[in-house]
């Protein structure tokens, strides 16, 4: 199993990582209690869950051998509902980690309740995907639509509860999901640090490239932002990013991938064996 995760992540090509590979194997052999995972779906499009499932190679063993999915409507057919729905369970179970997809709608009592309950029951809360982390395209919501015209105000979950890790992306890439899972299982806090820092980045926009990079005399015209924008909202003009705000969904990825926003030098050297 771990061999497969490692192969998937291309880790086996790097002999310098032998020490950490041994650690990974040790963790596997120790047959620790499996982490209990929950998955909560708020106002998102299921793209993040889809991206998770794109880890075909590792998904089945991951779900069956390495973790216990104890809560989640889609992944485990277990959900909790204050209104005593006959199919729902009485109380949300304790979880080591809960992935929350989607922003939360302030007018949706059920979602608000589930979110608050999740914070109570989970050790670690992950804002999974840009809707949960930054609000993403739900930031444009103005209500007045079916199925519920009153549902108008959608905010990143960190506006309501304390979040431990943010994994933005519309959706986050299958690789970052796999790498994060491995890091969580190994307790590799160094790898997770940037995701902890990103918890505070809830007001994302393509205009951050201008405000936080170009305006701050930091842009070097590398084009990473334009490459990483998932909606092709960014082009490069005279070596500087130009954002088409009509295409921007406020996912934050352009600024997050920019080498001038944060710089994980030590991890990169380790990954390259340098």
């Amino acid at each position, binding site marked *: 199993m771990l061999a497969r995760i490692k192969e998937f992540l*291309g880790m086996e*090509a*790097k*002999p310098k990582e032998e020490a950490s590979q041994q650690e990974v194997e040790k963790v596997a052999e120790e047959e620790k209690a499996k982490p209990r995972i929950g998955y909560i779906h708020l106002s998102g499009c299921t793209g993040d869950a889809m*991206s998770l499932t*794109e880890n075909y190679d590792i998904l089945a063993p991951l779900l069956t051998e390495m973790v216990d999915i104890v809560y989640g409507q889609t992944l485990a057919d277990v959900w909790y509902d204050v209104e005593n729905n006959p199919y729902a369970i009485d109380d949300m179970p304790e979880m080591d980690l809960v992935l929350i997809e989607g922003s939360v709608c302030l007018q949706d009592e059920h979602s608000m309740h589930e979110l608050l309950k999740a914070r109570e029951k989970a050790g670690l809360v992950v804002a999974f995907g*840009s809707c949960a982390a930054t609000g993403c395209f739900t930031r444009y919501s103005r209500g007045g639509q079916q199925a519920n015209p009153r549902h108008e105000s959608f905010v990143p979950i960190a506006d309501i509860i304390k979040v431990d890790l943010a*994994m*933005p*992306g*519309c959706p*986050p*890439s*299958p*690789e*970052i999901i796999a790498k994060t899972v491995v890091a969580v299982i190994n307790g590799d806090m160094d790898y997770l640090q*940037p995701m902890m820092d990103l918890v505070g980045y809830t007001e994302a926009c393509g205009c951050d490239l201008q405000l*936080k990079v170009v305006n*701050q*005399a*930091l*842009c*070097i*015209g*590398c*084009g*990473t932002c*334009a*490459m*990483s924008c*998932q909606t092709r909202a960014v*082009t*490069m003009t*005279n*070596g500087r990013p130009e954002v088409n705000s009509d295409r921007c969904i406020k*996912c934050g*990825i352009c600024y*997050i*991938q*920019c*080498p*001038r*926003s*944060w*710089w*994980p*030098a*030590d*991890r*990169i*050297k380790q*990954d*390259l*064996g*340098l």
Partner: protein
Amino acid sequence: MVLGTYKQIVHARSTDKQIQKISQDGGIATGLLCFALDEKIIDGAVVAGPSDEMWKPEPTVALSSDEILAAAGTKYTLSPNLWMVKEAVRQNGLEKAGIVTIPCQTMGLRKMQSYPIGVRFVADKIALDIGIFCTENFPFESLKTFITAKAGVNFDLVEKMDIGKGKFWVHTADDVISFPIKETHGYEQNGCKVCLDLVSELSDISTGSIGAPDNWSSVLTRTEPGETIFSQAVDAGLIETKPMDEGKFGLEMLTKLAKSKKEKAMKEIDQRKELGLPVPYKASSEKEDPLANV
């Protein structure tokens, strides 16, 4: 270690006469990419190709040796090569992409590979990154000023530009004009002032002219794949090497310039921190090695 981690450092040049003629220095970038393409180590490469405007590069996905050759030569202005990386993988379907990057672009590439947060299945398709040395880069309008105002040459007549021996050189068909590099100060892009990397410390193979004799390059192999590809090209006779000149105009010069770039940048970084301006790097007081690229 101001030159970053490396396996070997040598002088090298392409043995191909055509590449020697059109390349900037030893033709290492072009020579290695053509070799890697022929050997199917890569199936294409992102390079700073020509655009409609003279000397204004356009990041291009090169799928043939001809397209790689068309990108040879340094264009001293911004070419956002990283922009085309996803294009290369998605639109052109490259499975093993090569790329040429200046150090800051190398950094964007490597960050994306270690943290591909919103970039799906691109990181694993990068087979070779050739990093080129870089002291600074210029907006296109700055470059125009150098050529037309400082060198007094019609932009369209320029055949080659070069920085070396303390001067900016402009070659035309029948003339070579130069002016002191000092006169370019104030025209460089601002972001370069906090750049700690002269020699593309995170590339697979780095190359540049500093420390090398004319028409040769200095080459540092860094990663396993980088070392392998370089050795294969040497064994195949496409690249010739000679031992690095350890002296004043060789390794000493390269080390000195890499160090002084870092010292200047660290000063700027510390100043910015004092002013409360953002900068992604640590202040010198927070670092074990004040010259490390962190």
